């Protein structure tokens, strides 16, 4: 079982057991190199971060506004002809706090993965491959479509798992509670349906 575990996790095989052992030793002593932090520790961290964001920038942490603004800037830059005059009358897209936040998330994750020696670099996740095969094109197309649907939905509701799910719920906003219930329910039903033939735990 042990020798197969890295395959199940979608990770490459450890090349040099002695070297890996050495890395593990170092991780024990330096928390920055500890690969995985407990979800409660991270939850407390993000909770405190949301409070810092409110106090310093009067902003709830959210990710998708930046995508909307980027798309709007591109579409606006393409010129007239797009049926979105009303959009530009109501909204003023800009490079703002949320935009640099998105850049920060990329880099923060990159640095964490580098320092933790934890870059995964997968194209087809293991759970996906077991159900839908190893085809990269299929996985990339599904990722693109799923993401487009997800972001469209987030903008209809003005928020996502961050903006509604965490930042909205922590303010006890009713809209966020309704959004969380709706996406949670549909997300679970969709996942159970997608992976239905692989119902066993720990695939």
């Amino acid at each position: 079982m042990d020798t197969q575990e890295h395959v199940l996790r979608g990770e490459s095989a450890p090349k040099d057991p002695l070297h890996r052992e050495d890395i593990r030793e170092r991780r024990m002593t330096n928390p920055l190199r500890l690969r995985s932090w407990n979800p409660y520790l991270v939850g407390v961290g993000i909770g405190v971060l949301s409070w810092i964001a409110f106090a310093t920038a009067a902003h709830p942490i959210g990710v998708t506004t930046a995508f909307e603004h980027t798309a709007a800037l591109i579409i606006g830059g393409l010129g007239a002809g797009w049926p979105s005059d009303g959009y530009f009358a109501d909204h003023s897209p800009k490079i703002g706090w949320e935009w640099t936040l998105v850049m920060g998330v990329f880099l923060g994750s990159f640095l964490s993965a580098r320092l933790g020696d934890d870059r995964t670099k997968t194209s087809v996740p293991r759970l996906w491959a077991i159900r839908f095969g190893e085809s990269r094109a299929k996985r990339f197309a599904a990722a693109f479509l799923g993401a487009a649907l997800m972001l469209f939905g987030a903008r209809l509701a003005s928020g996502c798992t961050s903006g509604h799910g965490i930042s909205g719920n922590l303010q006890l906003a009713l809209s966020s509670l309704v959004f969380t219930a709706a996406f949670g329910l549909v997300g679970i039903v969709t996942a159970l349906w997608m992976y239905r033939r692989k119902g066993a735990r720990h695939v």
Partner: protein
Amino acid sequence: MKRDGVGKLALGFATGLAFGWLLERSRACRHEAMAGQLRGDDSRVARLMITASAVGSVATLALHQAGRVELSPKPLRLGGVVGGGLLFGAGMSLLGHCPGTSLAAVGEGNVDAFFGVLGMLAGAGAFVVTHDRIEPLLRRGDFGAPTLPELTHAPAWPFTSLLAAAAVGSTRLERAAPPMPEVS
């Protein structure tokens, strides 16, 4: 092109750095964490979210009551919030990441998540382009932007306590659905 001041941009960047770091370390940005959460094999994402909400709630609402911060609850327009939630849930399941963790998954070097980020930009573009036509639908069932304390004319602390109790209660999920063993 409009932009915020440099100080505010730097603050956003610093906040993002910490957020990305935390998402990567929690491994919530792994496909199996999110897909596993939705199909009931893994409970890390739910435990992380409820803890973040509870901790954030205590501090933010305390600061709010002291008059130090303005809240910005999002509007409850049933058309947009429910319709958006349904599409969001289906798309998130298909992708296996949420918007924030997609970015973190790209930071980890995952190619499929990069196509996800491109898709997110396309979805945002679709919203901008169709905005004028769908706006009336989104506005159906407009209830303003109420919070639970405003709605019930009650103080915030009972609700915050409920969130905290849910975070503590979520430790039971850990036993029900332990994460897959870590491999180093």
